[in-house]
């Protein structure tokens, strides 16, 4: 019998209340080994709270969290060997040199001497900060500070790297660099859980996506699944030169059509995304004598699709 791989992170029915506010309600999701799991959701949907609970900085009211097969509440000290955490703020000691900052966290991770030095130089090399060891942290640019934070989190070679909105406040060029870095880490076998508002960027390196809304995981699946769904759900834009009301009547009768809206002579049709459905719709309209001027799929991007799914504004 084939061995079933245990997910690196398994969150089950986690609930969290802040006073009368339900921050998380029955939050359930899992992250498979080697995957890059992107968490998206509008502000206040509970992404950061969920991540803080996973790393043990907040107490869950109920539910269970297992990291690398270990129950986090049963093995509280041990889980910190397996996770690296980068919060949404930098969290830096600006009066220390880069080398001193890294040495402090290496020692805090139980690394000493040769091992610590090797890990520090490897982590800095990985994020492109080699040669900056002698600089004060204060003198680094925002993107360098972000990279330093990731280097710090990578010191103990974590099985699970948790990044809370790492792209916040960094420019496009550095965002690309960060994307490449995450891809590289993932290629090396690190499992990554990342929350972000930059949905388009997430599509470039995430293997899985979780959509959060109102403190629950509304939908979770592979990125491929969501991209396919997004392509499938693109509405049809049909322009007619007249008889718009008749056209609506014709479309309402057709099985592949789910919804129709009209704006002057412009029809927006939610229908199955298959060639057969498109052929049927067009031929029925022409047969009924509707003067069709143009017939095409609306160019809705992935971000708009996800926003529609979360039912709110992300970012």
């Amino acid at each position: 019998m084939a061995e079933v791989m245990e997910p690196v992170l398994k969150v089950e029915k986690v609930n969290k209340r802040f006073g009368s506010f339900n921050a998380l309600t029955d939050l359930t999701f899992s992250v498979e080994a080697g995957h890059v799991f992107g968490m998206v959701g509008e502000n206040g949907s509970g992404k950061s709270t969920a991540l803080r609970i996973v790393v043990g900085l907040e107490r869950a009211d109920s539910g269970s969290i297992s990291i690398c097969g270990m129950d986090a509440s049963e093995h509280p000290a041990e889980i910190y060997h397996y996770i690296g955490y980068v919060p949404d703020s930098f969290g830096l000691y600006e009066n220390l040199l880069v080398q001193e900052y890294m040495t402090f966290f290496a020692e805090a991770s139980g690394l000493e001497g040769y091992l610590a030095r090797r890990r520090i130089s490897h982590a800095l090399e990985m994020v492109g900060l080699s040669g900056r060891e002698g600089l004060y942290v204060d003198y680094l640019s925002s993107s360098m500070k972000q990279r330093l934070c990731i280097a710090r989190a990578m010191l103990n070679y974590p099985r699970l790297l948790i990044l809370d909105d790492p792209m916040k406040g960094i420019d496009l060029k550095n965002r690309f660099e960060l994307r490449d870095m995450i891809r590289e880490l993932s290629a090396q076998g690190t499992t990554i859980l990342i929350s972000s508002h930059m949905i388009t960027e997430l599509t470039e390196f995430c293997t899985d996506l979780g959509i959060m809304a109102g403190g629950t995981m509304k939908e979770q699946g592979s990125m491929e699944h969501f991209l396919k769904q997004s392509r499938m759900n693109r509405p049809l834009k049909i322009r007619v030169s007249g008889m718009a009301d008749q056209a609506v009547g014709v479309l309402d009768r057709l099985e592949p059509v789910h919804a129709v809206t009209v704006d002057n002579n412009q029809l927006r049709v939610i229908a199955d995304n298959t060639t057969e459905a498109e052929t049927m719709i067009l031929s029925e309209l022409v047969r009924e004598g509707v003067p069709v001027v143009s017939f095409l799929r609306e160019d809705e991007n992935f971000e708009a699709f996800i926003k529609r799914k979360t039912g709110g504004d992300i970012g």
Partner: protein
Amino acid sequence: MNNPVLKREVRANMRSPKLILSIIGFNLVLALTGFIFLAFFEEAEPLERLFLELFFREDAARSMTASELAYNSIRLLYCLLILLEFVLLFFIIPTLTGSMIAGEREQQTLDLMLTSQLSPKTIVFGKLLAMMKTILMILISTLPILSLVYVFGSFSLFDMFASFGVMLVLSFFIGSIGLLFSAWIKRSVPATLCTYIVLLGMCILPLVIARLMPDLVGPGGSRPASFFHTLALLLNPLMSIVCLLKMRFGAETSFVSYLENTTNMAAETPIVRHWLIMSLLLQLVVAYLLVLLATKYLRPQYRRREMNSALKERMTVDPEAEKKKESQ
């Protein structure tokens, strides 16, 4: 001591101009006080007698000859400097400790430490020891000024070390209160203010209560003072300093009579006879408990436990395996 937090704090403190400014300021205040005392105070004989009466045996100063008065003035100067040192520490330590944990929270670096292998105990003790190291440096820097009174005699090295030791214990105690508030209250400024309020309350309230409500603490000499009032006085850092000064530089029995008069406590109890030692020991124990309590505020979710042996093994990585992993 291999505490990463202590090492980082000491490194950052050494780099900060605050430490050197504190040392200069501290010494400047002591030196100026000594200078003003020697230059002007000795001339004002009635004032001098009054201070001597307050510090030493109440009736002794009145009958002193002029030469005895001059000799005792130097002892008084030393007492004043010690008292001043205490007052300065009283105000400096809460500002140092108030931001120690709350400041890490504000800087959002506490989360990073808590998600590393550091236990809350290591973090809190690292912070406390770093504060003690700063205080030790300040106290050592004041030794040359305090030892100037040696020129005039009447002091032993023991006196100096005794006051030094008492200052260290009191700093540890005051620091632990500051650290507890810093861990409990999320912001530095309120944490510092709360520490001041509690310390002032600890120093003044028991004495005020004893003065205003003598019946509450037990009538003078007839029966022992109430347990809680004795406890409050033992924990009072100001009382410890007064006790040190009176016992080292006044008559042996003067502190006992002072306690009797101020607090209506029975003189024959062992606590009163060994007040300074009892008070310092109690303060050390309470300080340790407060620090342990402070660690509780740093771990909201998981109880920290010792690493199991398998994970300890994981930490001792073979360098060859390490290189192999890095080259992947």
